[in-house]
């Protein structure tokens, strides 16, 4: 339980850190990094909930959710960065 709380709490810290950075930093790359850290925080909470000590096997359901979430996050990251690149191209043309 202590480990679950400790690790989950760290996940929540990552969540708020990511949100803060998303809100205050303007450049796209920094926003994308911030969103990824926000997401990692939520995933971290789920992994912590799944952990059941070193003796019992962990809960596989949150693990699967996080795996899904990681792929979704990288998909969104890719699209956001390419949108940013096109924006930069059109600025260069202007």
């Amino acid at each position, binding site marked *: 339980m*202590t*480990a679950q709380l*400790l*690790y989950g709490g*760290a996940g929540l*810290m*990552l969540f708020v*850190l*990511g949100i*803060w*950075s998303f809100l205050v*930093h303007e*450049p*796209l*790359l*920094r926003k*994308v*990094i*911030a969103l*990824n*850290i926000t997401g*990692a925080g939520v*995933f*971290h909470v789920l*992994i*912590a909930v*799944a*952990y059941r000590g*070193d003796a019992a*096997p*962990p809960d596989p359901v949150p*693990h699967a959710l*996080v*795996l899904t979430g*990681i*792929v979704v*996050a*990288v998909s969104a*990251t*890719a699209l956001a*960065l390419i949108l*940013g*690149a096109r924006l*930069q191209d059109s*600025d*260069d043309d202007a």
Partner: protein
Amino acid sequence: MTQLVLLLLFDAVLLITLLGLALAAVLSPEPRRAVMLFIAFGLWLALVWARLHAPDVALAEAAIGAGLGGALMLAAARRAARARRQDAEAEP
């Protein structure tokens, strides 16, 4: 008892490093450095998840989150650096 305390200490070091890497990544204004720190954060996160008996997710995070996500971001950082250089040349 001592073992428990040692383990807790180990957990604390893992997590403080993790939070430190995340903080450094979001605070770094230089794109390439920020991405490098983010990749380090992702790899460290994978390590922490391995510690929590989540090897499947740890592998995926290292390969997809830190690896491919990082590669995509590095490409973006390169573009940002190029744009900055061009701006600097445009304004002598």
